[in-house]
């Protein structure tokens, strides 16, 4: 997969030092999973974090800290990572090209119709900022409503492609938009487009048709 739109240095750095809210964390991590270049950028950042930790000037722990730490080892079990049954999960999710591992473990709602040619499936990510995470599926050639945002929106293409003023976005591409961006994505002809979205704030439709549609579009 040829990826041409990547997270900014700042976004990746926030992910590396744990400062990203969970909604965006899931979407950026899903991009990093499928993008060798960003996986490498991310590893460099974590390596720097490791060096910073190792070279940190220590702050004394409580007097009984070591005793407490040793007592906590009694009876504690070794951690075994959960093995995902990919065959089962891909079947269960139906119509999905693949689901990023970053989504593993989060419950999903059913596909719901939210507008002509557009379906949405909520992902139950308990984001602390109230951002919503969902899958968006749009039919080939769908012209999304001309819109702007009240907060930031991250969109990762899982399959298919779309274009807007910012460029063409195919599988693996990450689109970062905020309230300064005003765009109207158009889905490529020939293939359904499925995206993973983390949206803060809400979407504002533009134009007369948009204002009429706004009450019905529950994005």
């Amino acid at each position, binding site marked *: 997969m040829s990826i041409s739109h990547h997270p900014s240095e700042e976004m990746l750095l*926030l992910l590396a030092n*744990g400062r990203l809210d969970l909604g965006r964390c899931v979407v950026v991590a899903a991009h990093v999973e499928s993008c060798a270049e960003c996986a490498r950028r991310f590893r460099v950042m974590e390596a720097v974090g490791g060096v910073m930790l190792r070279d940190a000037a*220590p702050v004394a722990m409580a007097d009984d800290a070591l005793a407490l730490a040793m007592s906590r080892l009694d009876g504690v079990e070794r951690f075994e990572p959960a093995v995902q049954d990919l065959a089962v999960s891909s079947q269960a999710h139906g119509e999905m090209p693949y689901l990023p591992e970053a989504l593993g473990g989060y419950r999903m709602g059913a596909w719901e119709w939210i507008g002509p040619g557009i379906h949405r499936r909520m992902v139950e990510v308990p984001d602390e900022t109230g951002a919503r995470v969902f899958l968006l599926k749009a039919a080939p050639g769908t012209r999304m409503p001309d819109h702007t945002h009240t907060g930031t929106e991250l969109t990762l293409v899982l399959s298919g492609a779309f274009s807007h003023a910012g460029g063409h976005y195919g599988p693996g591409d990450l689109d970062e938009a905020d309230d300064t961006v005003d765009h109207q994505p158009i889905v490529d002809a020939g293939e359904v487009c499925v995206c993973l979205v983390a949206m803060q704030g809400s979407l504002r439709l533009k134009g007369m048709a948009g204002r009429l549609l706004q009450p019905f579009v529950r994005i």
Partner: protein
Amino acid sequence: MIAIEHWASAADRPVLRNARTAHRSKVVQLKPMAQTRSDDLSGEQAALLRAVAAGDREAYAELFAYFAPRIKAMMMRGGLAPTPAEDVAQDAMLLVWRKAHLFDAEMGSPAAWIFTIARNRQIDLSRRARRAPTESQDADFEQVDDEPLPDAKVAAAQVDGKVRAAVLRLSAEQQQVLQLSFFEGQSQSEIAESLGIPLGTVKSRTRLAFQRLRALLGEFK
């Protein structure tokens, strides 16, 4: 209960900023250290982790003595009060014990691995504190590993010595931005504010710093 959370709501922001700017004068530069010692330490710590994986409590005590006070320091620089910072250090080290058998020296240094564990633990605790402040901490801890860690797949790093040498070759300004990002956990706009420079300058310094690091670490996996 976490006193200060990094995704604090708008109302919490001033607290966060005050806690951060209060010690902004204490930004320190990394001091050059002999490369050999740096590599030896990583190797030693990797050996200790392997012993811990085999159930060696003395090796665990040794790793605890080294890393717990440093995790605590990092959390405090990031804005946590001493008690929650100490809790993160304790919990992260318990996870080191529980996960030691999963450590892969091929994938990175012990310090980078422990850094990711401490970071994830802190995120987890903050999230819990926000979601259910009344739950007891022990009950919380039992659930920790059931939650997906979005970046578990890519958590890896290379030998510290090489990375450290590369960081030291950056300009002082670039090192300072890295220090504030990782050590103080500041966002780009917080860095701009505490250094009194434009946000665009912070962004370009960060971008150039990582470009340079990636070039210097060319053979990095």
